[in-house]
C-alpha cells in the first residue's frame, strides 16, 4: 500500500503565480518529511524538509506546511519560475534518522512563461 500519496499527477501554473503541491501520508509514525525535485534524466535533488515538531519551514521561495492532524503537507513555491518545471516528490521517514525514506509518486509541475 502507498504510504505517501500525491493525488495530482500534474500541475500547470503561470510564471509569477503561486504553485501549491499537496501530499498526504497514512503512517502516523512518520516524523520527518522532505520534498525532492527531479529534472528529466537526472536523479532527485533535495529541496526542503520539515520535522514533525514544526508546522512550517521556509527557504527562499519554497515553504513547506505540515498539518499532522490531517496527515497532510504542502509545498508552496512563490513566485513560480519556468526553471521550477520538474517532477516534485514528497517523501517521509520514521524512526532513526537513517531510516529509509518513503517517496510518493510525484507531481509534474509546469510553469508557463
Amino acid at each position, binding site marked *: 500500500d*502507498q504510504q505517501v500519496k500525491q493525488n495530482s499527477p500534474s500541475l500547470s501554473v503561470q510564471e509569477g503565480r503561486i504553485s501549491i503541491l499537496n501530499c498526504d501520508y497514512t503512517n502516523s509514525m512518520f516524523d520527518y518529511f522532505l520534498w525532492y525535485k527531479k529534472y528529466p534524466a537526472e536523479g*532527485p535533488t*533535495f529541496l526542503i524538509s520539515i520535522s514533525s515538531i514544526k508546522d512550517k519551514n521556509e527557504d527562499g521561495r519554497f515553504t513547506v506546511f505540515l498539518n499532522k492532524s490531517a496527515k497532510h503537507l504542502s509545498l508552496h513555491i512563490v513566485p513560480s519560475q519556468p526553471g521550477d518545471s520538474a517532477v516534485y516528490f514528497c517523501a517521509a*521517514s520514521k524512526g532513526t534518522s*537513517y531510516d*529509509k*525514506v518513503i*517517496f510518493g509518486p510525484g507531481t509534474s509541475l509546469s510553469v508557463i512563461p
Partner: protein
Amino acid sequence: EAGVTQFPSHSVIEKGQTVTLRCDPISGHDNLYWYRRVMGKEIKFLLHFVKESKQDESGMPNNRFLAERTGGTYSTLKVQPAELEDSGVYFCASSQEAYGYTFGSGTRLTVV
C-alpha cells in the same frame, strides 16, 4: 566533490539475461541506498547499506536481486534472471548525515 555515479546510464537486455548495475557513492559516505522507479510511479526503496553491511533489505522484490557493497565503497545490484517487470529506473543514493541523500542520475533498465 564528485557526486554519486551510476553506470551504465541505460541498459537494454532480453528477458532471462543477467544485468549488473554499479553505484559509486560520494567518498566517505557510509550510507548507500538503492531505489527503483517503475513507469511514473513512486520511487520505491530497495535496500540500505551501512558501510559493507546490509542495514535494511526489506524492499528487495525477490531473490533474483542481489546487492553487494565491496569494502564499504562501491555497490553493485545484480538482477538474474531479468524479467519484464524489472524494467524501470534504478537510483542509488548516498549520505553521511541524516536525510542528506545525494542521488545519482540513475540507470534506466529495459527488459525486452
